[in-house]
C-alpha cells in the first residue's frame, strides 16, 4: 500500500473538497454550454420531443441574416459592437478620472465612494424603468431641464438616432462605481515613495501620472477592459426594460445579440437558431478576450 506524506495528503484533501464545486460547475455551467453547441446544430423547438439534426443550417441562416441590411440580427451585432466600442472606453476613462479624484480627497471620502457605488448595487430593471421615465419626451426630467434653459426638447429613447446613446449612458453610469472601486484598489497598490521620488526629481503631475500611475495601473486596466468588454457584449436587461415591449427598437436601433437570443428562443421557439447566435457570441467573446490579454498584459518594470 502506498504511503502518503502529510503534504500529499493535504493536497489530496484539497482536491476532494474542490470536487464538489467542480461537479456543481460542470453540471450547472459547463454542461449547458456544451448542450447549447449541440442545440445549435438542430432544429430545436423546446416544445417538441424530436429535434431534427440540421448541420450548419442555423449558422448559414445567421450569415444570410447578417448580410440582409434590414434584419434584426444584423442590427443586433452592429449595435452590440457599438455598445462595446463606445461603452468600454468612455466608462473606463470616466471611472479613472473619478478614482483619481477620490484618491486625493480625505474628507467625506467614504461618502463619495458610496455615492458612486450605489447605482451598481441597484437593480438594473429598476434603474432602467426610472430612466425610461426621466427620458420621457414631454414631461420627463431631462426635457424639463432642457426646456428650463430654452433648449429644444429631445426625443431620447423614441428616435433611432438617440436611443442607443441614451441606453448606453445609463449603463455607463450604473457600472461606473464598480470600475471606480477597482481603480481605487489599484491606485492604493502604488507605493507613495515613487511619487515622492518623482517630485524630488522635479516631475510635473502629468509626468507622474504618465510614467508612474498609468504603467503601474496596467494590470487593473487589463482586468477592467476584459471584464467590461464582456459585460457590454452580453448587454440585455437594460434594452429589454427601456424599449417598448422589450423589442430593441425603435427600428432595431438598440437591440443586442443577447436580446435576439432571448426573442428567438422564447418568443419564436427557435432554440436552435438562438443557440447558433449564442455560440457565435461565445466565439467572439473568447476571441476578443484572448487578443486583449495578449496585447495589453505586458509586465512593467
Amino acid at each position: 500500500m502506498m504511503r502518503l506524506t502529510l503534504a500529499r495528503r493535504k493536497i489530496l484533501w484539497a482536491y476532494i473538497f474542490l470536487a464538489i464545486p467542480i461537479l456543481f460547475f460542470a453540471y450547472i455551467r459547463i454542461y449547458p454550454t456544451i448542450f447549447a453547441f449541440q442545440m445549435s446544430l438542430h432544429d430545436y423547438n423546446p416544445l417538441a420531443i424530436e429535434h431534427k439534426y440540421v448541420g450548419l443550417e442555423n449558422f448559414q441562416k445567421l450569415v444570410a441574416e447578417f448580410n440582409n441590411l434590414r434584419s434584426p440580427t444584423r442590427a443586433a451585432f452592429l449595435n452590440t459592437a457599438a455598445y462595446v466600442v463606445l461603452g468600454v472606453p468612455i466608462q473606463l476613462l470616466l471611472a479613472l478620472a473619478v478614482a483619481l479624484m477620490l484618491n486625493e480627497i480625505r474628507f467625506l471620502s467614504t461618502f463619495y465612494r458610496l455615492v458612486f457605488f450605489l447605482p451598481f448595487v441597484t437593480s438594473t430593471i429598476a434603474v432602467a424603468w426610472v430612466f425610461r421615465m426621466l427620458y420621457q419626451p414631454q414631461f420627463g426630467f431631462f426635457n424639463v431641464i432642457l426646456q428650463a434653459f430654452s433648449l429644444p426638447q429631445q426625443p431620447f429613447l423614441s428616435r433611432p438616432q438617440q436611443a442607443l446613446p441614451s441606453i448606453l449612458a445609463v449603463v455607463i453610469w450604473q457600472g461606473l462605481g464598480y470600475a471606480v472601486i477597482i481603480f481605487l484598489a489599484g491606485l492604493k497598490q502604488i507605493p507613495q515613495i515613487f511619487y515622492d521620488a518623482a517630485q524630488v526629481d522635479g516631475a510635473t503631475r502629468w509626468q507622474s501620472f504618465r510614467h508612474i500611475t498609468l504603467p503601474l495601473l496596467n494590470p487593473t486596466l487589463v482586468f477592467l477592459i476584459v471584464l467590461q468588454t464582456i459585460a457590454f457584449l452580453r448587454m440585455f436587461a437594460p434594452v429589454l426594460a427601456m424599449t417598448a415591449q422589450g423589442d430593441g427598437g425603435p427600428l432595431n436601433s438598440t437591440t443586442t445579440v443577447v436580446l435576439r437570443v432571448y426573442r428567438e428562443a422564447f418568443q419564436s421557439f427557435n432554440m436552435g437558431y438562438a443557440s447558433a447566435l449564442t455560440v457565435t457570441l461565445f466565439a467572439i467573446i473568447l476571441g476578443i478576450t484572448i487578443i486583449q490579454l495578449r496585447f495589453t498584459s505586458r509586465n512593467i518594470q
Partner: protein
Amino acid sequence: MKNFKFSLMILALLTILSAGFAAAAQDVVEIEYWQYFFEPRETAMNMLIEQFEAANPDIHVVHNSQIAYDNFRDEIAASAPAGVGPDVVTLFYGWIPAFVDAGYLVPLPEADFPAEWIESYFSPMVAESKFEGSYWAIPTAVRSLAMFWNKDLFEAAGLDPDTPPATLDDLVAMAKQATVYDGNGTDILNITSEGFAIGMSAQDHHWFREVLVRQFGGVPYSEDGRTVMYNSPEGCEAFKYLLSFEIEHKTGSNDLFTDVTEAFVNGNEAMHIDGSFRLGTIANNNPDMNYGVAELPVGPNGERSTFGSYWTHGITRRAAADPARMEAAVRFLQFITTAEAGTLWVNEVGELPAQLEAASDPAMLEDPILGPFAAGLEYAHATFFVDETVQRQVLIDAYDQVRLGGMDACEALNEAAATEQALLDDFWAARGS
C-alpha cells in the same frame, strides 16, 4: 425517552397519512391546469374548478396560475423538455399553429368535441382557428376591440360627450378637435392632451389588419391564411389613414404619456381603441374616469369590422400519454367551456362569453360598456398567426419606417409584407404541405 416517544408518534402519524394518500390516489386522477396570472381569471377558474370537482369527485385539478403574463410562454417552454407541465393549458389562440407544429397539443377528440357542435355553439372566430382540419383548442371567453372615449375630455373640447365617432371621417375630425396643444405650436411635442393616438405595439396593428384594410376594400390575408395581401393599393390607403393621425393631423403619438394605453387610462387621450380586457385596467387604475365604449367606426362603405381574439384551452400530449388523464382532461375542458362557464367568466373577468347562447343574452347586449364589444362578436375576424410576435413587429417597423425613417407608406408596407410572407412560407415549408 421523551424524544423517543415523540419520534414514534410522528412516525405513526406519517404512516397513517401516507396510507391515506395512497388510498386516495388510487381513485382520484390528478390533472394539472395552467394559465397566466391575472387575479380575476384566477378567481373565476378557482370557482369553476370547485364546481367541477364537486361534480367529478374522481378528478382533482391542480391550478397553476402563478406565472407572470410576460413569462407564460417561457415557463411552458421550460417545462416541456423536463416532461412536466400542464395537461390542460390556456394559450393565446394565435399560438395554436406553433404549438401544434411542435407536437405539444393533441387534437380535441371528435367524439367529445364534434366539429359541428364547435361551429354552431361558439362565436364564428373560434372556427377560424381550425388548423389542418382539426380543432386543437376551445375557449371559455373571447374579446373584441371597440372605441373607448373620455366624456370629460370631449366636453372640454366642445364635443358632445354622448356622441362617439361613427365613421372614420368623424374619427379624424373629432381627434383634431379634441387635441389640446400648449400654445407654442401644433407639433406632437406641443400636445398636452391627445385626441387620438396610434399605438402599433398595443392594439392598432390588429385594427389595421382586420378592420381598416377590410374597410378600405382590401383583405389582409388570403382565404387559407398563407399569403399576405394587405400590401394592396387598398391596404396602402388604409395604412396612410392610420399614419395620418400622427404625421398629418398631429393628434397624438405612442411616444407621449408612456404609451397610448397609459395615456387613455390616465385621462390624457380623448379616444382610444382597445379590447374588453382594458375595462379591468381602468376599473383598477382610474375608477372615476367618465368614459364610454362604442363599436368601432364604420368604413367609407359603411362596413363594420373588428378584431376578435381569445385565450383558449387545449389538451397537451402529456395528458394524451395516459388514458385516465386524457379522459379527465376532456371532462374538465368540456366543463370550463359551457355557456354557464362563459356567463360566470363575463361576471368575474369581464371577458365576453365565447358561446353564442351566453353572448346573446339581452341584458349583456344592452349593457352600455359590454354591449358594444358583444355586438362586435358577430363581425369580428381573428388573424391566423404563425408567430404573433414577429407578425406584429413587421407592422410596428413599417409604421416606424414611415414615421421616423421618412419612407414611403406603400414601400414600407411592401417591405413588411415581404418579411411576413417569408415567415409564412418558412412555416408552411416546414409543415411539409
